[in-house]
Protein backbone atom coordinates (compact mmCIF):
# COMPACT_ATOMS: atom_id res chain seq x y z
CA UNK A 1 0.00 0.00 0.00
CA UNK A 2 1.67 3.14 -1.10
CA UNK A 3 -0.48 5.24 1.25
CA UNK A 4 1.70 4.35 4.22
CA UNK A 5 4.96 5.25 2.56
CA UNK A 6 6.40 8.64 3.23
CA UNK A 7 5.91 11.12 0.45
CA UNK A 8 9.47 11.49 -0.79
CA UNK A 9 9.21 14.60 -2.86
CA UNK A 10 12.58 14.57 -4.48
CA UNK A 11 12.59 10.90 -5.43
CA UNK A 12 9.43 11.38 -7.39
CA UNK A 13 10.32 14.16 -9.72
CA UNK A 14 9.69 17.80 -8.93
CA UNK A 15 8.14 18.72 -5.60
CA UNK A 16 4.44 19.59 -5.43
CA UNK A 17 5.29 23.26 -5.03
CA UNK A 18 7.42 23.20 -8.18
CA UNK A 19 4.61 21.45 -10.03
CA UNK A 20 2.06 23.90 -8.69
CA UNK A 21 4.13 26.84 -9.86
CA UNK A 22 4.78 25.25 -13.25
CA UNK A 23 1.16 24.39 -13.97
CA UNK A 24 -0.14 27.68 -12.60
CA UNK A 25 2.22 29.59 -14.86
CA UNK A 26 1.19 27.40 -17.79
CA UNK A 27 -2.48 28.10 -17.04
CA UNK A 28 -1.87 31.79 -16.71
CA UNK A 29 0.05 31.84 -19.96
CA UNK A 30 -2.77 30.03 -21.72
CA UNK A 31 -5.28 32.41 -20.14
CA UNK A 32 -3.35 35.41 -21.32
CA UNK A 33 -2.95 34.07 -24.85
CA UNK A 34 -6.59 32.99 -25.03
CA UNK A 35 -7.95 36.26 -23.69
CA UNK A 36 -5.81 38.45 -25.94
CA UNK A 37 -5.25 36.53 -29.16
CA UNK A 38 -7.03 34.00 -31.33
CA UNK A 39 -4.17 31.51 -31.61
CA UNK A 40 -5.82 28.77 -29.56
CA UNK A 41 -9.08 28.55 -31.48
CA UNK A 42 -7.86 25.67 -33.67
CA UNK A 43 -6.66 23.68 -30.64
CA UNK A 44 -10.02 24.28 -29.03
CA UNK A 45 -11.78 23.00 -32.14
CA UNK A 46 -9.74 19.80 -32.16
CA UNK A 47 -10.47 19.12 -28.49
CA UNK A 48 -14.12 20.00 -29.03
CA UNK A 49 -14.40 17.34 -31.72
CA UNK A 50 -12.83 14.80 -29.35
CA UNK A 51 -15.30 15.47 -26.56
CA UNK A 52 -18.32 16.02 -28.82
CA UNK A 53 -19.67 12.43 -28.60
CA UNK A 54 -19.51 12.50 -24.80
CA UNK A 55 -21.27 15.82 -24.65
CA UNK A 56 -24.06 14.45 -26.80
CA UNK A 57 -24.21 11.45 -24.50
CA UNK A 58 -24.84 13.69 -21.50
CA UNK A 59 -27.67 15.41 -23.33
CA UNK A 60 -29.39 12.06 -23.90
CA UNK A 61 -31.22 11.68 -20.56
CA UNK A 62 -32.90 15.05 -20.99
CA UNK A 63 -33.88 14.31 -24.56
CA UNK A 64 -35.25 10.91 -23.62
CA UNK A 65 -37.31 12.45 -20.83
CA UNK A 66 -38.71 14.93 -23.35
CA UNK A 67 -39.64 12.13 -25.74
CA UNK A 68 -41.30 10.14 -22.98
CA UNK A 69 -43.26 13.22 -21.94
CA UNK A 70 -44.48 13.62 -25.53
CA UNK A 71 -45.43 9.95 -25.63
CA UNK A 72 -47.63 10.28 -22.57
CA UNK A 73 -49.38 13.45 -23.66
CA UNK A 74 -53.11 12.86 -23.63
CA UNK A 75 -55.44 13.25 -26.55
CA UNK A 76 -57.30 16.14 -24.94
CA UNK A 77 -54.06 18.06 -24.47
CA UNK A 78 -53.20 17.51 -28.12
CA UNK A 79 -56.69 18.59 -29.18
CA UNK A 80 -56.52 21.83 -27.18
CA UNK A 81 -53.07 22.55 -28.50
CA UNK A 82 -54.20 21.81 -32.04
CA UNK A 83 -57.20 24.14 -31.67
CA UNK A 84 -55.00 26.87 -30.26
CA UNK A 85 -52.48 26.51 -33.06
CA UNK A 86 -55.25 26.57 -35.68
CA UNK A 87 -56.64 29.75 -34.19
CA UNK A 88 -53.16 31.26 -34.15
CA UNK A 89 -52.68 30.17 -37.74
CA UNK A 90 -55.89 31.85 -38.86
CA UNK A 91 -54.95 35.05 -37.14
CA UNK A 92 -51.46 34.93 -38.59
CA UNK A 93 -52.73 34.16 -42.05
CA UNK A 94 -55.00 37.20 -42.00
CA UNK A 95 -52.10 39.34 -40.85
CA UNK A 96 -49.83 37.80 -43.45
CA UNK A 97 -52.28 38.68 -46.21
CA UNK A 98 -52.26 42.30 -45.10
CA UNK A 99 -48.52 42.13 -44.73
CA UNK A 100 -47.99 41.05 -48.32
CA UNK A 101 -49.98 44.04 -49.53
CA UNK A 102 -47.94 46.36 -47.32
CA UNK A 103 -44.74 44.68 -48.47
CA UNK A 104 -45.60 45.20 -52.13
CA UNK A 105 -46.45 48.80 -51.40
CA UNK A 106 -43.20 49.24 -49.50
CA UNK A 107 -41.16 47.76 -52.34
CA UNK A 108 -42.83 50.11 -54.76
CA UNK A 109 -42.25 53.13 -52.56
CA UNK A 110 -38.63 52.15 -52.04
CA UNK A 111 -38.18 51.82 -55.81
CA UNK A 112 -39.72 55.24 -56.26
CA UNK A 113 -37.46 56.71 -53.59
CA UNK A 114 -34.46 54.84 -55.00
CA UNK A 115 -33.70 53.29 -51.62
CA UNK A 116 -32.06 49.92 -51.28
CA UNK A 117 -34.51 47.03 -51.15
CA UNK A 118 -34.89 45.21 -47.92
CA UNK A 119 -33.62 41.69 -48.25
CA UNK A 120 -35.16 38.47 -47.00
CA UNK A 121 -32.78 36.55 -44.84
CA UNK A 122 -32.27 32.85 -45.37
CA UNK A 123 -32.68 30.97 -42.14
CA UNK A 124 -31.88 27.52 -40.95
CA UNK A 125 -33.30 25.57 -38.08
CA UNK A 126 -31.05 24.38 -35.31
CA UNK A 127 -31.79 22.58 -32.09
CA UNK A 128 -30.33 23.44 -28.71
CA UNK A 129 -27.81 20.73 -27.94
CA UNK A 130 -27.23 21.87 -24.40
CA UNK A 131 -27.17 24.93 -22.24
CA UNK A 132 -24.03 26.40 -20.77
CA UNK A 133 -23.14 24.91 -17.42
CA UNK A 134 -21.25 27.96 -16.28
CA UNK A 135 -23.24 30.25 -14.03
CA UNK A 136 -21.16 33.24 -15.11
CA UNK A 137 -22.24 33.08 -18.69
CA UNK A 138 -25.44 33.06 -20.65
CA UNK A 139 -24.58 30.79 -23.49
CA UNK A 140 -25.98 27.75 -25.20
CA UNK A 141 -24.89 25.35 -27.87
CA UNK A 142 -26.90 24.48 -30.97
CA UNK A 143 -26.42 21.40 -33.09
CA UNK A 144 -25.36 23.12 -36.33
CA UNK A 145 -21.79 24.14 -36.95
CA UNK A 146 -19.36 24.97 -39.69
CA UNK A 147 -20.52 21.82 -41.53
CA UNK A 148 -23.85 23.60 -41.99
CA UNK A 149 -22.20 26.90 -42.97
CA UNK A 150 -22.85 28.64 -39.70
CA UNK A 151 -20.53 31.61 -39.25
CA UNK A 152 -19.56 33.51 -36.12
CA UNK A 153 -21.58 36.67 -35.80
CA UNK A 154 -24.79 35.26 -37.20
CA UNK A 155 -27.97 36.03 -35.36
CA UNK A 156 -30.03 33.36 -33.63
CA UNK A 157 -33.74 33.89 -33.04
CA UNK A 158 -36.88 32.02 -32.18
CA UNK A 159 -40.42 32.71 -33.30
CA UNK A 160 -40.73 35.72 -31.02
CA UNK A 161 -37.46 37.55 -31.25
CA UNK A 162 -33.70 37.61 -31.10
CA UNK A 163 -32.16 35.02 -28.81
CA UNK A 164 -28.50 35.76 -29.32
CA UNK A 165 -25.54 35.63 -31.59
CA UNK A 166 -23.23 32.85 -32.75
CA UNK A 167 -19.87 33.51 -31.11
CA UNK A 168 -17.86 30.40 -31.81
CA UNK A 169 -18.30 27.68 -34.42
CA UNK A 170 -17.22 24.05 -34.12
CA UNK A 171 -17.70 21.45 -36.86
CA UNK A 172 -21.05 20.20 -35.53
CA UNK A 173 -21.84 22.70 -32.84
CA UNK A 174 -21.98 26.42 -32.43
CA UNK A 175 -21.84 28.46 -29.30
CA UNK A 176 -24.55 31.09 -29.00
CA UNK A 177 -24.15 34.01 -26.62
CA UNK A 178 -27.58 35.08 -25.45
CA UNK A 179 -28.70 38.68 -25.59
CA UNK A 180 -29.03 38.52 -21.81
CA UNK A 181 -25.32 37.78 -21.41
CA UNK A 182 -23.70 40.43 -19.24
CA UNK A 183 -22.75 43.48 -21.33
CA UNK A 184 -23.86 41.93 -24.61
CA UNK A 185 -25.00 44.91 -26.65
CA UNK A 186 -27.70 44.98 -29.31
CA UNK A 187 -28.36 48.17 -31.28
CA UNK A 188 -32.10 48.72 -31.31
CA UNK A 189 -34.83 51.13 -32.24
CA UNK A 190 -38.01 51.79 -30.35
CA UNK A 191 -40.69 50.41 -32.63
CA UNK A 192 -43.18 53.17 -31.72
CA UNK A 193 -41.08 56.18 -32.62
CA UNK A 194 -37.86 54.93 -34.19
CA UNK A 195 -35.67 56.18 -31.35
CA UNK A 196 -32.23 54.57 -31.63
CA UNK A 197 -30.43 53.12 -28.63
CA UNK A 198 -28.40 50.17 -27.48
CA UNK A 199 -29.80 47.53 -25.16
CA UNK A 200 -27.43 45.62 -22.88
CA UNK A 201 -27.73 42.21 -21.27
CA UNK A 202 -27.63 42.16 -17.49
CA UNK A 203 -26.43 38.62 -16.91
CA UNK A 204 -29.87 37.80 -15.54
CA UNK A 205 -31.95 35.50 -17.73
CA UNK A 206 -35.04 37.73 -17.88
CA UNK A 207 -33.60 41.21 -17.73
CA UNK A 208 -31.91 43.67 -20.06
CA UNK A 209 -31.23 47.33 -19.64
CA UNK A 210 -31.38 50.33 -21.91
CA UNK A 211 -28.40 52.42 -20.91
CA UNK A 212 -27.37 55.98 -21.65
CA UNK A 213 -30.87 57.21 -22.34
CA UNK A 214 -31.51 60.76 -21.15
CA UNK A 215 -34.16 61.22 -18.48
CA UNK A 216 -36.36 62.96 -21.01
CA UNK A 217 -36.10 60.19 -23.62
CA UNK A 218 -39.38 59.25 -25.22
CA UNK A 219 -39.65 55.70 -23.97
CA UNK A 220 -42.74 54.38 -22.20
CA UNK A 221 -43.46 51.12 -20.50
CA UNK A 222 -44.56 48.46 -22.96
CA UNK A 223 -42.50 49.82 -25.84
CA UNK A 224 -41.18 47.12 -28.12
CA UNK A 225 -37.53 47.36 -29.11
CA UNK A 226 -36.51 46.01 -32.52
CA UNK A 227 -33.03 45.70 -34.00
CA UNK A 228 -32.04 48.76 -35.96
CA UNK A 229 -29.65 46.97 -38.31
CA UNK A 230 -27.29 49.90 -38.20
CA UNK A 231 -24.36 47.91 -36.84
CA UNK A 232 -24.26 45.60 -39.85
CA UNK A 233 -24.46 42.55 -37.60
CA UNK A 234 -28.10 42.25 -36.75
CA UNK A 235 -30.61 42.34 -39.58
CA UNK A 236 -33.09 45.17 -39.02
CA UNK A 237 -36.57 44.89 -37.50
CA UNK A 238 -36.20 41.76 -35.42
CA UNK A 239 -37.97 42.15 -32.09
CA UNK A 240 -35.59 42.05 -29.14
CA UNK A 241 -37.16 43.22 -25.92
CA UNK A 242 -40.03 44.98 -24.26
CA UNK A 243 -39.67 47.84 -21.80
CA UNK A 244 -40.98 46.82 -18.39
CA UNK A 245 -39.87 49.49 -15.97
CA UNK A 246 -38.63 53.05 -16.22
CA UNK A 247 -37.14 55.02 -13.36
CA UNK A 248 -36.61 58.68 -14.12
CA UNK A 249 -34.59 60.21 -11.34
CA UNK A 250 -33.44 63.74 -12.16
CA UNK A 251 -30.47 63.22 -9.85
CA UNK A 252 -28.96 60.90 -12.43
CA UNK A 253 -28.07 61.95 -15.96
CA UNK A 254 -29.63 58.82 -17.44
CA UNK A 255 -32.98 57.14 -16.98
CA UNK A 256 -32.89 53.60 -15.63
CA UNK A 257 -34.82 51.50 -18.12
CA UNK A 258 -35.35 47.79 -17.60
CA UNK A 259 -36.55 45.47 -20.34
CA UNK A 260 -37.36 41.79 -20.69
CA UNK A 261 -36.29 39.85 -23.76
CA UNK A 262 -39.19 38.93 -26.02
CA UNK A 263 -37.67 35.68 -27.19
CA UNK A 264 -38.00 32.70 -24.93
CA UNK A 265 -34.30 32.80 -24.25
CA UNK A 266 -34.50 29.84 -21.91
CA UNK A 267 -37.61 28.12 -23.18
CA UNK A 268 -37.25 26.58 -26.61
CA UNK A 269 -35.47 23.67 -28.16
CA UNK A 270 -35.61 24.78 -31.79
CA UNK A 271 -34.03 28.03 -32.89
CA UNK A 272 -33.47 29.78 -36.20
CA UNK A 273 -30.05 30.86 -37.37
CA UNK A 274 -30.33 33.84 -39.67
CA UNK A 275 -27.64 33.12 -42.20
CA UNK A 276 -27.65 36.13 -44.50
CA UNK A 277 -26.12 39.21 -42.99
CA UNK A 278 -27.19 42.54 -44.41
CA UNK A 279 -24.69 43.91 -46.90
CA UNK A 280 -23.85 47.43 -45.95
CA UNK A 281 -21.79 49.87 -47.93
CA UNK A 282 -18.16 49.82 -46.83
CA UNK A 283 -17.06 51.86 -43.88
CA UNK A 284 -15.62 55.18 -44.99
CA UNK A 285 -12.41 54.58 -43.07
CA UNK A 286 -10.98 52.10 -40.62
CA UNK A 287 -9.42 53.33 -37.40
CA UNK A 288 -5.90 53.35 -38.88
CA UNK A 289 -6.86 55.25 -41.98
CA UNK A 290 -8.92 57.67 -39.93
CA UNK A 291 -5.84 58.37 -37.82
CA UNK A 292 -3.96 59.01 -41.03
CA UNK A 293 -6.65 61.30 -42.35
CA UNK A 294 -6.58 63.19 -39.06
CA UNK A 295 -2.88 63.73 -39.52
CA UNK A 296 -3.49 64.95 -43.07
CA UNK A 297 -6.16 67.31 -41.76
CA UNK A 298 -3.80 68.70 -39.16
CA UNK A 299 -1.18 69.29 -41.80
CA UNK A 300 -3.72 71.06 -43.95
CA UNK A 301 -4.76 73.24 -41.02
CA UNK A 302 -1.18 74.13 -40.30
CA UNK A 303 -0.66 75.12 -43.90
CA UNK A 304 -3.74 77.29 -43.78
CA UNK A 305 -2.39 79.04 -40.68
Amino acid at each position, binding site marked *: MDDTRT*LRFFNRGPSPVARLVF*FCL*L*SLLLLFVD*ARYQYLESARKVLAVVIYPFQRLTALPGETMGRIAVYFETQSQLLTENARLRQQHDADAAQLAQMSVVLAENTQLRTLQELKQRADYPMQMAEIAY*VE*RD*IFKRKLFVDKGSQANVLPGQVVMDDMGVVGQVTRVYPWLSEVTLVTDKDHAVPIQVLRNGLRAVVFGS*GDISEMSLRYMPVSADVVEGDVLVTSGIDGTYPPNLPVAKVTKIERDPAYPFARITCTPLAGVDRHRALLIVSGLPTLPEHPATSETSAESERVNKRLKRRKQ
Partner: protein
Amino acid sequence: MNPNLRKDQEFLLPASTSFIVFSLFVAVMLNWLPWSGWALALRPDFVALVLLYWCTHKPHRIGIGTAWVVGIFADVADASLFGQHALAYTVLAFGGIVLHRRVQMFDLRQQSLHVFPMLLLSYAAYAAVHWQVRGYVAWEYFLGSAVSALLWTPMTILLQALRRPRRDPNEL
Protein backbone atom coordinates in the same frame (compact mmCIF):
# COMPACT_ATOMS: atom_id res chain seq x y z
CA MET B 1 -7.34 2.41 19.26
CA ASN B 2 -9.15 5.10 17.39
CA PRO B 3 -11.82 3.43 15.24
CA ASN B 4 -11.23 6.00 12.51
CA LEU B 5 -7.67 4.90 12.13
CA ARG B 6 -8.70 1.30 11.82
CA LYS B 7 -11.10 2.27 9.09
CA ASP B 8 -8.39 4.13 7.31
CA GLN B 9 -6.10 1.17 7.34
CA GLU B 10 -8.70 -1.23 6.06
CA PHE B 11 -7.59 -3.29 3.14
CA LEU B 12 -8.71 -1.85 -0.16
CA LEU B 13 -8.10 -3.12 -3.64
CA PRO B 14 -5.25 -1.29 -5.31
CA ALA B 15 -6.79 1.45 -7.42
CA SER B 16 -6.30 0.34 -10.98
CA THR B 17 -5.67 3.02 -13.57
CA SER B 18 -8.84 2.04 -15.39
CA PHE B 19 -10.87 2.51 -12.21
CA ILE B 20 -9.40 5.98 -11.67
CA VAL B 21 -10.06 6.94 -15.27
CA PHE B 22 -13.57 5.52 -15.06
CA SER B 23 -14.38 7.49 -11.90
CA LEU B 24 -13.09 10.70 -13.49
CA PHE B 25 -15.09 9.95 -16.63
CA VAL B 26 -18.31 9.50 -14.63
CA ALA B 27 -17.60 12.75 -12.77
CA VAL B 28 -17.07 14.61 -16.06
CA MET B 29 -20.32 13.19 -17.41
CA LEU B 30 -22.18 14.35 -14.28
CA ASN B 31 -20.68 17.82 -14.69
CA TRP B 32 -21.79 17.99 -18.30
CA LEU B 33 -25.42 17.14 -17.61
CA PRO B 34 -27.65 20.00 -18.73
CA TRP B 35 -27.98 21.85 -15.44
CA SER B 36 -29.84 25.13 -15.43
CA GLY B 37 -31.30 27.75 -13.12
CA TRP B 38 -30.89 27.11 -9.41
CA ALA B 39 -29.63 23.62 -10.04
CA LEU B 40 -26.77 25.24 -11.93
CA ALA B 41 -25.98 27.59 -9.07
CA LEU B 42 -26.04 24.71 -6.59
CA ARG B 43 -24.32 22.26 -8.91
CA PRO B 44 -21.46 20.55 -7.16
CA ASP B 45 -18.27 20.18 -9.13
CA PHE B 46 -18.07 16.40 -9.35
CA VAL B 47 -14.78 16.49 -11.23
CA ALA B 48 -13.18 18.57 -8.50
CA LEU B 49 -14.47 16.15 -5.87
CA VAL B 50 -13.19 13.02 -7.60
CA LEU B 51 -9.86 14.68 -8.36
CA LEU B 52 -9.56 15.67 -4.73
CA TYR B 53 -10.43 12.13 -3.61
CA TRP B 54 -7.67 10.62 -5.72
CA CYS B 55 -5.20 13.37 -4.78
CA THR B 56 -5.76 12.69 -1.10
CA HIS B 57 -5.94 8.89 -1.33
CA LYS B 58 -3.45 8.17 -4.10
CA PRO B 59 -1.19 11.22 -4.27
CA HIS B 60 1.46 9.30 -6.19
CA ARG B 61 -0.92 8.30 -8.93
CA ILE B 62 -3.04 11.34 -9.53
CA GLY B 63 -1.32 14.64 -9.21
CA ILE B 64 -1.26 18.19 -10.37
CA GLY B 65 -0.50 17.25 -13.98
CA THR B 66 -3.59 15.07 -14.31
CA ALA B 67 -5.72 17.75 -12.70
CA TRP B 68 -4.41 20.27 -15.19
CA VAL B 69 -5.21 18.08 -18.20
CA VAL B 70 -8.73 17.41 -16.89
CA GLY B 71 -9.09 21.15 -16.42
CA ILE B 72 -8.18 21.82 -20.04
CA PHE B 73 -10.93 19.45 -21.21
CA ALA B 74 -13.36 21.14 -18.84
CA ASP B 75 -12.38 24.48 -20.38
CA VAL B 76 -13.21 23.28 -23.86
CA ALA B 77 -16.50 21.77 -22.77
CA ASP B 78 -17.57 24.85 -20.82
CA ALA B 79 -16.29 27.31 -23.42
CA SER B 80 -14.40 29.08 -20.66
CA LEU B 81 -10.98 30.56 -21.29
CA PHE B 82 -8.18 28.07 -21.81
CA GLY B 83 -6.56 27.53 -18.44
CA GLN B 84 -9.42 28.74 -16.28
CA HIS B 85 -10.57 25.34 -15.00
CA ALA B 86 -7.01 24.09 -15.36
CA LEU B 87 -5.80 26.72 -12.90
CA ALA B 88 -8.61 25.98 -10.45
CA TYR B 89 -7.98 22.21 -10.54
CA THR B 90 -4.22 22.71 -10.24
CA VAL B 91 -4.69 24.68 -7.03
CA LEU B 92 -7.13 22.05 -5.78
CA ALA B 93 -4.81 19.14 -6.54
CA PHE B 94 -1.95 20.91 -4.80
CA GLY B 95 -4.08 21.39 -1.69
CA GLY B 96 -5.13 17.75 -1.79
CA ILE B 97 -1.57 16.44 -2.15
CA VAL B 98 -0.04 18.66 0.50
CA LEU B 99 -2.79 17.88 3.04
CA HIS B 100 -3.41 14.24 2.13
CA ARG B 101 -1.95 12.73 5.31
CA ARG B 102 -3.74 15.22 7.49
CA VAL B 103 -7.11 14.73 5.78
CA GLN B 104 -6.91 10.96 6.13
CA MET B 105 -6.41 11.27 9.89
CA PHE B 106 -9.98 12.46 10.35
CA ASP B 107 -13.33 10.78 9.94
CA LEU B 108 -15.49 11.60 6.97
CA ARG B 109 -17.43 14.48 8.47
CA GLN B 110 -14.28 16.18 9.66
CA GLN B 111 -12.75 15.49 6.28
CA SER B 112 -15.47 17.50 4.56
CA LEU B 113 -14.55 20.45 6.78
CA HIS B 114 -11.01 20.12 5.47
CA VAL B 115 -12.14 19.71 1.92
CA PHE B 116 -14.36 22.77 1.95
CA PRO B 117 -11.60 25.41 2.13
CA MET B 118 -9.69 23.66 -0.62
CA LEU B 119 -12.76 23.65 -2.85
CA LEU B 120 -13.45 27.25 -1.93
CA LEU B 121 -9.92 28.19 -2.94
CA SER B 122 -10.27 26.43 -6.26
CA TYR B 123 -13.63 28.12 -6.89
CA ALA B 124 -12.05 31.43 -5.95
CA ALA B 125 -9.26 30.88 -8.48
CA TYR B 126 -11.85 30.31 -11.19
CA ALA B 127 -13.89 33.34 -10.16
CA ALA B 128 -10.79 35.52 -9.88
CA VAL B 129 -9.85 34.80 -13.49
CA HIS B 130 -13.37 35.61 -14.56
CA TRP B 131 -13.31 38.81 -12.54
CA GLN B 132 -10.01 39.84 -14.16
CA VAL B 133 -11.29 39.21 -17.66
CA ARG B 134 -14.95 40.19 -17.49
CA GLY B 135 -14.97 42.48 -14.48
CA TYR B 136 -17.67 40.97 -12.27
CA VAL B 137 -18.29 37.98 -10.04
CA ALA B 138 -21.50 36.00 -9.66
CA TRP B 139 -21.51 35.31 -5.92
CA GLU B 140 -24.00 32.46 -6.07
CA TYR B 141 -21.28 30.55 -7.88
CA PHE B 142 -19.60 29.87 -4.53
CA LEU B 143 -22.66 27.96 -3.29
CA GLY B 144 -21.41 25.13 -5.46
CA SER B 145 -18.29 24.70 -3.32
CA ALA B 146 -20.40 24.23 -0.18
CA VAL B 147 -22.61 21.66 -1.90
CA SER B 148 -19.50 19.90 -3.19
CA ALA B 149 -18.09 19.74 0.33
CA LEU B 150 -21.36 18.23 1.56
CA LEU B 151 -21.09 15.59 -1.15
CA TRP B 152 -17.59 14.62 -0.04
CA THR B 153 -18.87 12.07 2.50
CA PRO B 154 -21.25 10.12 0.23
CA MET B 155 -18.76 10.20 -2.62
CA THR B 156 -15.92 8.88 -0.49
CA ILE B 157 -18.15 6.11 0.89
CA LEU B 158 -19.12 5.16 -2.65
CA LEU B 159 -15.58 5.11 -4.00
CA GLN B 160 -14.28 3.21 -0.95
CA ALA B 161 -17.09 0.68 -1.34
CA LEU B 162 -16.15 0.14 -4.97
CA ARG B 163 -12.52 -0.42 -3.97
CA ARG B 164 -13.33 -2.88 -1.19
CA PRO B 165 -12.64 -6.52 -2.05
CA ARG B 166 -15.55 -8.93 -1.97
CA ARG B 167 -15.64 -10.83 1.30
CA ASP B 168 -16.00 -14.29 -0.13
CA PRO B 169 -15.55 -14.87 -3.83
CA ASN B 170 -17.42 -18.17 -3.58
CA GLU B 171 -20.56 -16.40 -2.49
CA LEU B 172 -21.32 -15.26 -6.01
